[in-house]
């Protein structure tokens, strides 16, 4: 439910998260090191060509860029004004290529697989005192809490609305925070009473 993943069976979907992340890192570094506008345009087209390969539509590609349109416009205008249109185009297109490349990884990888890979990678930090099992518990708990907190916030907003206080951020934030801490204490008890030993 809570995922940006776009289901599919393409080679990119089947590739495991580790190699995809590695390619992304290399690609992002290359984009930053490259200073030429034609190569940037080429890279952007290359990334866009990968979208159909990954069974994704160009509409989905557009959706990755749309929320950033305003900041792109602002950057473009500033660069154009100060440094000319070539640099303005280069900066904005490079950003677009970067974001589309990263989104390609996000759209073709289940977040659960990504989390599993991250937890696995954390195993290498074991000598530093990192315990992957505890990290796993923290991740599950966080995913469990998000809808609960959203609901608490909703309830408090409704209660304050009845008192005409819904526009007062503090009248909402304070009771939410108090209930959150109370919940933390109860959940700790619940976890321990279900046999968990840290």
């Amino acid at each position, binding site marked *: 439910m809570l995922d940006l993943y776009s289901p599919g069976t393409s080679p990119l979907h089947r590739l495991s998260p580790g190699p995809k992340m590695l390619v992304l890192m290399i690609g992002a570094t290359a984009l930053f090191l490259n200073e030429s506008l034609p190569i940037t345009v080429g890279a952007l087209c290359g990334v866009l060509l990968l979208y159909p390969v990954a069974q994704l539509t160009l509409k989905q590609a557009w959706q990755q860029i749309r929320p950033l349109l305003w900041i792109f416009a602002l950057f473009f205008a500033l660069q154009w004004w100060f440094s000319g249109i070539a640099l303005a185009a280069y900066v904005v297109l490079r950003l677009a290529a970067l974001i589309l490349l990263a989104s390609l990884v996000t759209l073709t990888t289940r977040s659960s697989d*990504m989390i599993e890979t991250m937890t696995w990678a954390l195993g290498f930090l074991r000598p530093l005192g990192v315990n992957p099992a505890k990290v796993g518990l923290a991740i599950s*708990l966080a995913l469990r809490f998000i809808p609960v907190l959203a609901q608490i916030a909703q309830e408090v907003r409704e209660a304050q609305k009845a008192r005409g206080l819904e526009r007062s951020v503090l009248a909402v934030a304070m009771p939410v925070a108090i209930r959150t*801490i109370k919940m933390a204490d109860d959940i700790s008890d619940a976890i321990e009473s279900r046999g*968990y030993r840290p």
Partner: protein
Amino acid sequence: MDTKSIVYIALFAALTAALGLMPPISFAGLALPPITAQSLGVMLAGAVAGPRRGGLALLLFVALVAAGLPLLAGGRGGIGVILGTSGGFILSWPICAAVIGILVAKAPNAGFVPMAVSIALGGLVLMYAVGIPWMAFVGKLGLMKSLTIMVAYIPGDLVKVVLATIVARGLRRAYPNL
């Protein structure tokens, strides 16, 4: 690490995500990204949960965003956002929460102003100190110009500092042994 710490880490990560669901405030004719309540989560994590738990809570949050969960305001997420123009701000959150935690822990029962200053140092000054150079780098924009853009955000962030201080002080009164 005890069970309670694990729960607090998860809870403040979730709180930061839940704050992203609050309707954002748009301004400047949509020329700039909207102000969101999300950095309030950073400030509260540091000031309430402490440096270790708060810092790890935000590290967990950033990891979940990177893993592709749409936890940032407006339902955004994925590595793309982290590599984008506001990526520096997001990446700075774990450090900011930890620094706020360290500063607040130095005088946990201090008055309103000292706590607000601690929260502002970590949640505003430090956040900008990481976020603005990042923005300048990915946008090839130069520090001063990036700084000018961010001036528009200072009033909103100051409001969040005040809010975080009031809530953190209230919580510390309600739960003296947090």
